[in-house]
């Protein structure tokens, strides 16, 4: 406990932990200190633990409240998605993509569809389908970030924002239910387009949702992201410097939270994003170290909060340009994919979702690789944890916003 009451300024408490570690490690010089050395304790956080957001196990070595080491164990939700991809037909695999990042199933559908479409050179996707895809994917990004917002609040101990966030998410799910009949696992975006046109009045309701959400968003930001205690808990915690983020291959809000201005939607555009960006429909929010230092948990969190607003603007833009037309390209009932291989990465709410598909011209894939962003993003946690407090480790895991279905696939 003596570690907790440090008299160093609070803003660099992390570096003071680090310095202390070095002090105990370097046995060469005799330091003058009265810290009682207690035996280390190994604690299993998970597989069943509220802070691990699913069935993940983090083995933590603790000295009192101070975390001295950690090890992440995955695989509790491994469902062999890649092996299944080699055994079912192209279209049959689509519902399996819903299951890896179950909070952003639309985005997963899109990633897989785009990877297969990359192998079909003649296939053209109609404009209405492109815009419907974009609208749904962005709505799903909002829904996914709302969960990230709510559960991060929950990790920090604020329960109410979680329920507010889920209320808005519920509305998005209702919208999805109207367009495709499902609330969580949509399989809405198909190879070649989308499978169902927007029902009458749906686009109008999406516009209404945007109006309401814009107002609510300000409240949510003030309630949690700008709350003083919340800032105290997350700023300066789990700092990922720029070069470390790049070295670990982080993508999405994790990368942007560290101050790297990179977004696949803007920098390697697909669907309607290039056009939308040129029309000024959205910006890419980047962490600035506003409340703490660049790349801390608060930055990562706030990037997600701001992205929700940008997604709203994108949806608005799409609603403005959408017009009637066909919703799916010319594809046969049983899809035959020409031989070839392709890797397509798209910007998921959690980072780059990559699909590598290899076809030999047959009914099933030779190889269907899924590169889930959470899998890469969680790897950095082992590195961040030593030298933080137990409560900080929860804040760090929460700020990576992982979905276990995706790390394990």
């Amino acid at each position, binding site marked *: 406990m*003596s570690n907790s009451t*440090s*008299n*160093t300024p609070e803003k*660099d408490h992390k*570096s*003071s932990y*680090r*310095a*202390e570690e*070095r*002090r105990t490690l370097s046995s060469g010089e005799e*330091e*003058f*200190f*009265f810290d009682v050395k*207690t*035996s280390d304790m190994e604690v299993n956080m998970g597989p069943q633990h509220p802070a691990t957001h699913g069935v993940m196990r983090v083995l933590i070595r603790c000295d*009192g409240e101070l975390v001295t080491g950690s090890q992440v164990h995955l695989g509790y939700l491994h469902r062999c998605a890649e092996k299944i991809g080699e055994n079912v037909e192209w279209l049959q695999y689509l519902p399996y993509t819903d299951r890896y990042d179950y909070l952003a199933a639309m985005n997963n559908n899109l990633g897989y569809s785009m990877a297969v479409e990359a192998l079909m050179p003649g296939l053209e996707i109609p404009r209405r389908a492109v815009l419907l895809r974009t609208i749904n994917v962005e709505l799903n990004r909002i829904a996914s970030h709302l969960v990230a917002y709510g559960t991060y609040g929950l990790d920090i101990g604020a329960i109410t924002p979680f329920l507010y966030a889920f209320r808005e998410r519920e509305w998005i799910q209702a919208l999805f239910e109207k367009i495709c009949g499902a609330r969580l696992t949509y399989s809405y975006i198909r190879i070649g387009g989308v499978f169902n046109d927007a029902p009458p009045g749906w686009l109008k309701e999406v516009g209404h949702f945007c109006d309401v959400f814009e107002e609510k968003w300000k409240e949510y930001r003030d309630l949690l992201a700008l709350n003083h205690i919340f800032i105290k808990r997350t700023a300066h915690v789990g700092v990922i410097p720029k070069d470390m983020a790049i070295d670990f291959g982080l993508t999405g809000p994790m990368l942007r939270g560290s101050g790297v201005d990179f977004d696949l939607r803007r920098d390697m555009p697909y669907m309607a994003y290039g056009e939308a960006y040129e029309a000024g429909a959205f910006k890419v929010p980047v962490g600035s170290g506003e409340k703490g230092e660049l790349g801390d948990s608060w930055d990562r969190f706030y990037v997600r909060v701001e992205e929700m607003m940008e997604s709203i603007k994108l949806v608005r833009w799409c609603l403005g340009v959408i017009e009637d037309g066909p919703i799916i390209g010319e594809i046969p009932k049983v899809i035959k994919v020409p031989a070839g291989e392709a890797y397509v990465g798209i910007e998921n709410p959690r980072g780059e979702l990559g699909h590598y598909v290899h076809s030999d011209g047959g009914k099933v894939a030779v190889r269907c690789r899924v590169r889930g962003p959470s899998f890469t993003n969680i790897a950095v946690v082992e590195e961040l944890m030593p030298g933080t407090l137990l409560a900080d480790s929860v804040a760090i895991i929460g700020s990576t916003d992982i979905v276990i279905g995706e790390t394990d696939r």
Partner: protein
Amino acid sequence: MSILHQQRAFYGLLTLAILTSVGYGLVSHGAEGMAFGFFSSFTIAGSLMCIWERSVVRSAFSLMATFMGVAGLFLLLGSDFLAMAQILIYVGGILALILFGVMLTPPDLGERSLPRIGGTLVLVLGGASLVWKHVMDATESLAVLPVEELTPMTSQDQSVGLAFLHPEQYVVAFELAAFLLTVALVAAVYIARRRTADFEPEEAA
């Protein structure tokens, strides 16, 4: 005799002793006697458990019974202030700190092999007879001066405060103790303070 049996025998004897003293107090001096029997035997039982128990933490917890029993005895004497001070300082403060320190030590069961059967019997019997003797003595003294006839100590807070501040009573001792504690506190802070200058900040490395 296994550890479990020893444990059972010990606690059985202890319970018997407590019940006996409570019962005797009740028969000889009514409700007050019963309360006295209860509190006094509780005090002694707690201290016996403290010696007997193999786990350090359980020993520490059993001290709570002792402290509470003593507080109860003070209450019985009509001295609320002392009773509450006993609970506040010993149970809420000192015991919590002892537990805090003791709990992180590894459970070393082999080390505390003091209470063997013979020693245990001696301790328990001695304790029981002590309880008995205490009850006898105390009830006799109570019989000399029944509780109803004790002058009730109204507003003890004021009498205690006045005693501390009265120049002819404890004011010098009180001030000296306060001064000593302040010096000790400042010295402790001085010794335990973190010397940030001793190791360079991380950025420099």
